[in-house]
């Protein structure tokens, strides 16, 4: 069963094109049209130069942050299309094949999960960290601006691999977890799993460097007086998240790397025979995987903390508690990975210990919810869209927490594991928790980034659609799970499941409306940006340093770096009438020049991945050469900085 591998094109041949199903073919066309359309529009507007110098080669953390978020929003749409297709399939496929062949359905749940976690949630989070954290700590940039650009471009390269798998070849059918032995060549030959491996490996390297970058930035680049216990909550959660990235992502890189060795070089780490053991993969994967969910949700907690204090016009309640709770969650997140496979047959002692360890995390999490509640208590609450998302989160998240604790009880887990109860649980965490948090952050900080507000009416509409859509789409899955419905079902013969699955489909349609509202909101706000303009730089009566500068902030962030004397220093200064002191500034500042290293590394990383997927080894080597060459070349660049002279005279407040 040896494939034909040519020197020039590896195993790439005409059968790589998606003619196997009309649905996949249309998807490929839409993807292509999207790509070509984008290129056409940029050309038509004659904006190539502006795009290249203003964005693609920029190493400004704010620009990079925005590019991350654009990437995330595009991938959110793609991931959602996958989701609603699955919902439609299951609404139809009682005793029938539905409209998707099994192979295609399997690619869809795998790509949905992979996209949502790696290419929607991670870039969204990284984008927010990028934009906000340097501003919150009073820094002019991140510690390693060029490394930051490289991280972005590697993430984009991973996303590119993910997208191109729809057009050339197929995607994995092994789920977002890629468990062997199923994901080994014996059961899934072809390029699907390789696409999965290389897209997350390439982007994972970028993510690891992001983690390093932000730990160093936060520890080393704070304004004078910004002690750790004066840092805003979002910065704290960003710090913990970045530390988790540094410790967790290597496990993923190793696990997927070993899987790649099994698949490509015929090794036997995780195969059924020759001494391979797939249990090792599951341990490695979840040693990354559980911290990963906290990597995603801690920054969302940070956003909720900022939003709840700002829109309650009140100091954050229990700040030290929140800080300790965050740190405790971060540490404990490494101690619970086994709860993802209680059904593997470990002894009762082992399962009980991990079950209890898991529940312990509910303690600091519960504390956080109470602290937000007490922040609202005796506040003066404004229901702007970010606050709506926060309140929605608080009400829904506790439900997800409850199902999480149930799943952590091993005997209950034995009968709910692998069912839609689990699917409902984690969506209950990632939608109201992670996604609502990021959307709240997006609407909260948008005026800072662009100098005008997002339309609040459409924002509120999007919230209600997401909220109700979420409830309809996922509450039925709890019930279905208790009825024994497994996840990843392409078709089923159980009549009693269908009505609930139809409700879930309607829920997904409402979520679609929520996404449409987000698009309209952006459109309307750009159209009426004059009326929505923010001239103050502080549109929400904010508390933290990012609100002390004009919107959008200058490239160098702070005309003069402030001296911090207390928590919420900006808010204190605003109300006490004594402006913040600042560090004496030299007349001119240095900002990093643009660099092509990022795009080169991204391009190289993409070629390495694509080459390795298709066994086009010359391409993989060439990609590696480009990436390494770019790095070496960078070392010879002398003039890495540019002088700017902030106009200190024109400074406001």
């Amino acid at each position, binding site marked *: 069963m040896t494939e034909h591998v040519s020197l020039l094109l590896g195993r790439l041949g005409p059968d790589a094109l998606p003619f196997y199903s009309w649905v996949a073919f249309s998807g490929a066309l839409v993807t292509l049209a999207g790509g070509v359309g984008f290129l056409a529009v940029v050309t038509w507007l004659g904006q190539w130069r502006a795009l290249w110098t203003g964005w693609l080669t920029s190493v400004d953390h704010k620009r990079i942050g925005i590019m991350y978020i654009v990437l995330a929003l595009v991938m959110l749409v793609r991931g959602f299309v996958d989701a609603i297709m699955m919902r439609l399939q299951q609404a139809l496929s009682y005793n029938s094949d539905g409209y998707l062949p099994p192979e295609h359905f399997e690619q869809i749940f795998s790509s949905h999960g992979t996209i949502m976690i790696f290419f929607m949630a991670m870039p969204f989070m990284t984008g927010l960290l990028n934009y906000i954290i340097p501003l919150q700590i009073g820094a002019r940039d991140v510690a390693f601006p060029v490394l930051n650009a490289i991280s972005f471009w590697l993430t984009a390269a991973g996303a590119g691999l993910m997208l191109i798998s729809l057009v050339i070849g197929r995607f994995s059918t092994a789920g977002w977890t890629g468990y062997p032995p199923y994901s080994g060549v014996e059961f899934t030959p072809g390029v699907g799993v390789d696409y999965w491996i290389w897209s997350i490996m390439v982007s994972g390297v970028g993510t690891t460097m992001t983690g390093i970058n932000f730990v160093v930035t936060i520890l080393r680049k704070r304004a004078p007086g910004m002690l750790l216990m004066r840092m805003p909550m979002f910065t704290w959660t960003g710090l913990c998240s970045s530390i988790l990235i540094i410790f967790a992502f290597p496990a993923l890189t190793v696990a997927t790397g070993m899987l790649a060795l099994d698949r490509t070089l015929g090794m036997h780490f995780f195969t059924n025979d020759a001494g391979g053991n797939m249990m090792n993969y599951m341990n490695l994967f979840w040693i990354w995987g559980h911290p990963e969910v906290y990597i995603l949700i801690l920054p969302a907690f940070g956003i909720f903390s900022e939003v709840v204090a700002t829109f309650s016009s*009140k*100091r954050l309640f*229990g700040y030290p508690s929140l800080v300790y709770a965050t740190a405790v969650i971060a540490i404990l997140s490494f101690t619970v990975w086994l709860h993802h496979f209680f059904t593997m047959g470990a002894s009762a002692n082992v399962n009980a210990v991990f079950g209890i360890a898991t529940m312990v995390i509910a303690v600091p999490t519960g504390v956080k919810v109470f602290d937000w509640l007490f922040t609202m208590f005796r506040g003066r609450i404004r229901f702007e869209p970010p606050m709506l998302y926060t309140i929605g989160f608080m009400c829904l998240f*506790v439900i997800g927490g409850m199902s999480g604790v149930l799943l952590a009880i091993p005997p209950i887990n034995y009968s709910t*594991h692998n069912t839609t109860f689990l699917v409902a649980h984690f969506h209950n965490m990632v939608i109201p928790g992670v996604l609502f948090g990021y959307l709240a952050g997006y609407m909260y900080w948008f005026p800072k980034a662009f100098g005008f507000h997002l339309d609040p009416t459409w924002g509120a509409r999007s919230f209600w659609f997401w909220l109700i859509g979420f409830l309809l789409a996922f509450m039925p899955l709890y019930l279905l799970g208790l009825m024994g419905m497994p996840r990843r079902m392409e078709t089923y013969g159980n009549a009693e499941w269908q009505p609930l699955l139809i409700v879930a489909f309607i829920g997904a349609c409402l979520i679609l409306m929520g996404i449409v509202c987000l698009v309209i909101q952006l459109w309307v706000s750009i159209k009426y940006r004059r009326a929505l303009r923010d001239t103050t730089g502080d549109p929400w009566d904010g508390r933290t340093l990012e609100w002390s500068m004009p919107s959008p902030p200058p490239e160098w962030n702070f005309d003069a770096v402030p001296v911090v004397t207390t928590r919420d220093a900006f808010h204190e200064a605003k109300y006490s009438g004594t402006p913040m002191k600042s560090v004496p500034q030299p007349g001119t500042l240095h900002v990093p020049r643009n660099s092509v290293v990022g795009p080169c590394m991204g391009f190289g990383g993409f070629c390495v991945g694509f080459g390795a997927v298709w066994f086009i080894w010359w391409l993989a080597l060439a990609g590696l050469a480009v990436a390494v060459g770019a790095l070496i070349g960078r070392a010879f660049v002398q003039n890495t900085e540019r002088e700017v002279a902030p106009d200190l005279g024109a400074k406001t407040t």
Partner: protein
Amino acid sequence: MTGPIADAVDALMWQAFGLMLVIVVPVIALTLFIAWRYRASGGSGTHQPDWDHSRAVEITVWGIPVLMIAILATWVWEKTHALDPYKVLPGAKPLQIEAIALDWKWLFIYPELNIGTVNELAFPVGQPVTFRITSEVAMNSFMIPALGGQIYAMAGMETKLNLQANETGTMQGRNMQFSGDGFAGQTFEALSMSQDDFEAWVSKVQDSDTPLDHATFAEVRKPSVDAPVRYFSTVPPDFFSKRVAHFMGMEHEMMHGTKAANE
């Protein structure tokens, strides 16, 4: 349809759910209430913008979750041991059944009765059953949802599950772990029957004209979707253990040798 495990899990679930509702419902209600009462546009609450600390509140907000988790933790410890899937259920001597996951069906072997089936499982009501489980293919997960409990099936490894049905009837059992194209249809019927019916069923299987020899197994092992029920009159001794051992180390070397010779 119930069994002692399913019943105990149900009870535990309600108990834990109830305990948590005691906190979760007030939290949701309070969130909505506070949001309403302290709304900027016409709310009636006082505004205390600098109130950010209270020792009493801190102790309560750490104390309540600690207390709740402490209670839950004792239940976890106790119930995880009580409902350990490896623990043989009390009562009569358990019926031994061996389950082998194939693509995409289940092969069941009754070692004491020396019979086998594909995609049909029968056992006497009220008698404990001990399953030994393995896989010939990708990882599967064995479950009969109505009876509770679930355990992975992995090649070269053996896992165990103990179950029992309290009523007669037909249940659906299945693989819960996605394992490829035929996964959705990888179900089997689990029949809980009276002792007499069970004995009749056993004779029926014994009367089938196919033994599970190597040729039949090779044929059964081929991937197939929605495979029909089959009965095997006899099964070679130690069949299950040999299949488990098959995937472990040594044998592979030998296989490689013969493969190489054939190529």
